[in-house]
């Protein structure tokens, strides 16, 4: 079993990077806002950044160990690092770029990534998606024990991104390498990774599968990051075992989570229904207000009502004849309302 162990402490500009993680034969994503220290973690593993303290090891082999005084240079660490802007060598062809890391598997890797016809092209002539594949092929040409990817999809336009994301997910599954990728996009992490760690200001604030993070975020940040609405209020036990939450705007909602004091109520857009009039079901939470915005996304529409974003099908948006500025009622169940401490 090949596994990468990382524990490190390093002071960055305004905060301290301090984390420990283990990556087995799986894909782990570190997600977090820009400047949270994600890239520094990859650089420390690859040997491009020397942490103040810590240990980086592949199984029993230490690459870095501040106590034992071990610090292998990057070329002696078996990693394949895919840089954010890909860092392809502009003066070499695609085949030369890949051969630079290892001449033996060039044909096989160009074939695997579907870029064999581009072997004589130079990076400047390639599209973003093609560059990304060359970068992955080059990173693999060394036969690395660990694959590291820095924002593998960030340099792509929205159109290319969805396709490359699917291809990359497929490829990572087939490779079966311990893979650590960092991204600021939760969707990318959810699509590519088996496990997700949320990195904020240098620390992992929550770790789990993407569905787990969505289902039970432990902090407002994770809730917001995974795409949920966050409503601030004060919670106390209410009737029939439900928790009552008085929101800042004076309205009251209910949750099945048990929590008291200052809380954030987390509601995911796909759990919010939109109607012209309030449904009669008393177990539901309602927010009434005019439609602030309507944004179609493929066959869905994101509707903003007061502090809430709802995601409904395009068909029901048509049926309700929703227009910006018109009053509607957004409703969601108490069971779909998670509470996180603030």
């Amino acid at each position: 079993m090949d596994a990468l162990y990382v524990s490190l402490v390093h002071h960055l500009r305004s905060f301290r990077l301090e984390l420990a993680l283990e990556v087995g034969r799986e894909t782990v994503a570190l997600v977090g806002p820009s400047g949270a220290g994600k890239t520094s973690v990859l650089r420390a593993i690859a040997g491009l950044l020397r942490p103040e303290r810590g240990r980086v090891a592949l199984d029993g082999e230490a690459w870095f160990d501040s106590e034992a005084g071990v610090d292998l240079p990057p070329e002696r660490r078996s990693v394949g690092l895919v840089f954010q802007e890909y860092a392809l060598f502009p003066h070499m062809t695609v085949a030369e770029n890949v051969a630079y890391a290892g001449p033996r598997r060039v044909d096989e890797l160009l074939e695997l990534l579907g870029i064999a016809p581009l072997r004589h092209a130079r990076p400047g002539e390639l599209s973003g998606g093609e560059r990304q594949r060359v970068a992955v092929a080059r990173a693999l040409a060394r036969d690395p024990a660990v694959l590291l990817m820095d924002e593998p999809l960030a340099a792509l336009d929205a159109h290319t991104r969805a396709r490359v994301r699917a291809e990359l997910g497929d490829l990572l599954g087939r490779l079966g390498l311990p893979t650590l990728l960092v991204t600021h996009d939760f969707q990318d992490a959810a699509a590519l990774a088996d496990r997700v760690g949320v990195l904020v200001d240098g620390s992992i604030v929550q770790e789990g599968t993407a569905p787990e993070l969505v289902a039970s975020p432990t902090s407002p940040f994770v809730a917001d990051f995974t795409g949920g609405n966050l409503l601030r209020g004060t919670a106390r036990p209410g009737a029939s075992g439900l928790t009552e939450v008085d929101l800042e705007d004076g309205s009251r909602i209910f949750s099945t989570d048990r929590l008291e004091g200052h809380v954030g109520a987390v509601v995911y857009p796909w759990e919010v229904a939109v109607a012209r009039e309030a449904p009669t079901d008393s177990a539901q939470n309602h927010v009434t207000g005019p439609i602030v915005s309507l944004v179609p996304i493929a066959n869905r529409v994101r509707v903003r009502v007061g502090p809430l974003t709802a995601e409904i099908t395009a068909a029901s948006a048509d049926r309700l004849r929703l227009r910006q500025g018109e009053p509607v009622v957004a409703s969601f169940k108490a069971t779909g309302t998670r509470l996180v401490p603030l």
Partner: protein
Amino acid sequence: MRRAFETALVVATGLALAFLLLPILALFVRISPRELLEALWSDVALDALWVSLKTGLIAHFFVLLVGTPAAYFLATKRFRGRGVLITLVELPLVLPPAVAGIALLALFSRRGLLGQELDAFGIQIPLTQTAVVLAVTFVAAPFYVRQAIASFETVDRTLIEASRTLGASPARTFWRVAVPLSATGLGAGSALAWARGTGEFGATIMFAGSLQGVTQTMPLAIYAQLDLEPDIAIAIGALLVLVSLTVLLSVKLLPSWTRFTSVSYITSARSASS
């Protein structure tokens, strides 16, 4: 009013060009091309050409051999006193050639700082061809090193790091990534250093003397022939103008020959992805 200003600009430009180009033009109209070629075929001119070429090539070899890694070190390492070192490397650029000459004498003459030690081994440098090489190297090297530092600094650091994570040692990274991506700037610096070395006069005449066939380079031959055979002086001068023009053109044209500098690549990558 505006008219007058425009006219003043044109007049100033005309004056500047005339002043800079007329002397060079005069060099070529003084004697006919046939006389010029005959003058170049003289022993003095051929000897000077040979001495200049030989010492120039040897000096240039050492400038590139030592200057390139030194420039790479100064460009990529961050340490205390780096700025001071770079400034010191550039000092000979602004040093008067006569000072360079007397400084080289102070180091290598028999009573100089190293002179006695060298003398003990039977080595005497002043007034030899070695002295020409040293003088040329001393004045020309900073032109190359300065340009090489600037070129290495523009290589995207990420590419250097990428090379290392792909298993390449620092030495392989230098040869396969840093040098090719700096080739344009290294070529320009090399051409400028060559031009400066070819024109070297002051330090050479003080340190190496002007012995025909041994230390008399082309600029020294021009000076020596001025009173004896002015045609030869003019012919060598004309030849040096052509050499200088070639160097200037190669520096100007070099960037369009090598397309794959890291800088232009990054801008194209950004615009392509945005």
